[in-house]
């Protein structure tokens, strides 16, 4: 069992962030709704079916996608399988330790998973080879390389970029048998969910909190927005509270911001 630990930050840094925030300003001169500079490189890992390296400010996340054969789940015999795993690699932060996944990496993986699954970003029905017997399994592995805050959005952007650009071997199904053909085809992608994470600092809500901001923020909220502006996943964390009005405001901020971020993913995936 774990407990939520308050991160260590010096009082003077914490005060600086709070004082700036009171005037709607941030340490790196962003407005409350600005993301840090985003750079997405796709296809860097040749051995993966798809990959994306996301630089969000100084946060770096590498996502790899592998498509393999597997058995379907008994309750969804006609659907392919999606699994998301996240590794908080010890080289990424002094607070990460080697060992089995802790609750933070599990939560990270599950929030990324929920966005992709609930928006039906991948049409899993198209990944069935033989109902009840054989399906394709899409493994999305999130590898955090440098932790400077907002791992959820960096990972979700990376996962979306990686599945959007992933290629699998072309195939046909003859009498329930899988036969590979020449050439490569994309994964059946039909939605583009964007996770927007916000932090509550003092009485303000800011998008894309940096590590320093995460250390002073009281509550964290992630809202995942589909391409039509609907919401498909939410997750709140931290020891703080959100008033109902703050919650509604945050959802509005996320819905308003998602289009801009989705355009960046589609641009990188071109």
């Amino acid at each position: 069992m774990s407990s939520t630990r308050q991160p260590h930050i010096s009082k003077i840094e914490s005060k600086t962030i709070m004082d700036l925030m009171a005037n709607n300003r941030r340490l790196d001169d962003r407005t409350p709704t600005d993301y840090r500079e985003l750079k997405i490189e796709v296809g860097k890992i040749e051995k993966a079916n798809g990959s994306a390296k996301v630089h969000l400010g100084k946060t770096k996340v590498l996502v790899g996608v592998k498509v393999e054969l597997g058995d379907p789940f008994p309750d969804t015999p006609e659907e392919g399988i999606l699994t998301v795993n996240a590794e908080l690699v010890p080289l990424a932060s002094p607070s990460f330790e080697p060992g089995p996944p802790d609750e933070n990496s599990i939560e990270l993986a599950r929030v990324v998973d929920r966005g992709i699954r609930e928006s039906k970003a991948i049409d899993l029905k198209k990944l069935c080879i033989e109902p009840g017997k054989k399906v394709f399994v899409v493994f999305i592995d999130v590898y955090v390389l440098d932790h400077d805050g907002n791992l959820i959005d960096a990972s979700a952007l990376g996962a979306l970029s990686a599945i959007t650009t992933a290629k699998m071997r072309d195939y046909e199904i003859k009498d329930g048998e899988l036969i590979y053909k020449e050439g490569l085809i994309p994964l059946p992608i039909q939605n583009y969910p964007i996770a927007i994470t916000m932090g509550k600092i003092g009485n303000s809500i800011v998008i894309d909190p940096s590590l320093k901001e995460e250390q002073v923020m009281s509550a964290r909220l992630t809202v995942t927005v589909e391409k039509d502006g609907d919401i498909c996943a939410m997750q709140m964390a931290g020891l703080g509270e959100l008033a109902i009005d703050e919650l509604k405001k945050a959802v509005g901020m996320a819905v308003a911001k998602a289009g801009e971020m989705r355009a960046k993913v589609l641009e990188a995936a071109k």
Partner: protein
Amino acid sequence: MLNQSKPDKLIDDRGLRVDGRRPDEIRPVKMEVGVLDKADGSAYIEQGKNKILVAIYGPREAHPRHVALPDRAAIRCRYHMAPFSTDERRSPAPSRRDMELSKVIREAVEPAIFSKYYPRTTIDIFIEVLQSDGGTRSAGITGTSLALADAGVPMKDLVVACAAGKIDGQIVVDLCDAEDKLGEADLPVAIIPSSGAVTLIQMDGNLSPEEFEKALSMAVNGCKHLYEMQREALKRKYLLIKEAVEEKMDVKEGE
């Protein structure tokens, strides 16, 4: 209820749900505190077919010692489902879902606890789902704050949770298992009723921003309803103790 078949419609022509409820109606709820002898505080909650037992141990000496925090109690939580609690037997080993729920439940109740009163100690929350019927995290939170109150842990207020969601295109409160699995969205919400602050919100499925606001207000209304029942359950325990004491005194006077 084993091997129940899949209903075609989740809301029938009369506007009633699979278990006969109206959209804004929560399931029958039973709450009881002080149900375990050895725990410092405990509670039992039934909500629909959910049957959940919660025990609190602490504030107690932190063990192992390195988990202790210098300025407040370390609050830990284990949410666990019994192997026989679901249609298919589940492994008793903690799943990734259990790990995530343990975290969100802990973070939902912690803002209400005056943990600074007990530095270097732990407060351990053990939630055992004996039978699950959808909405176990919400019922678990409602039961946890009852058990914390029963343990005498100082809190700002009770924390209470309730879900809302969307089934057959309609927003409804307190989803049961079938509605959770076959419906279009689930939105569990925990609040501290005295301030109205939200301490947990999660969502999966599909909601437009307007539907979200409607579901949120329905979940909050459900919370307020459950909050009254929590208060009653706590009072009931002490009324029973009072009655027992008075009875004893009557016997003595009659001697």
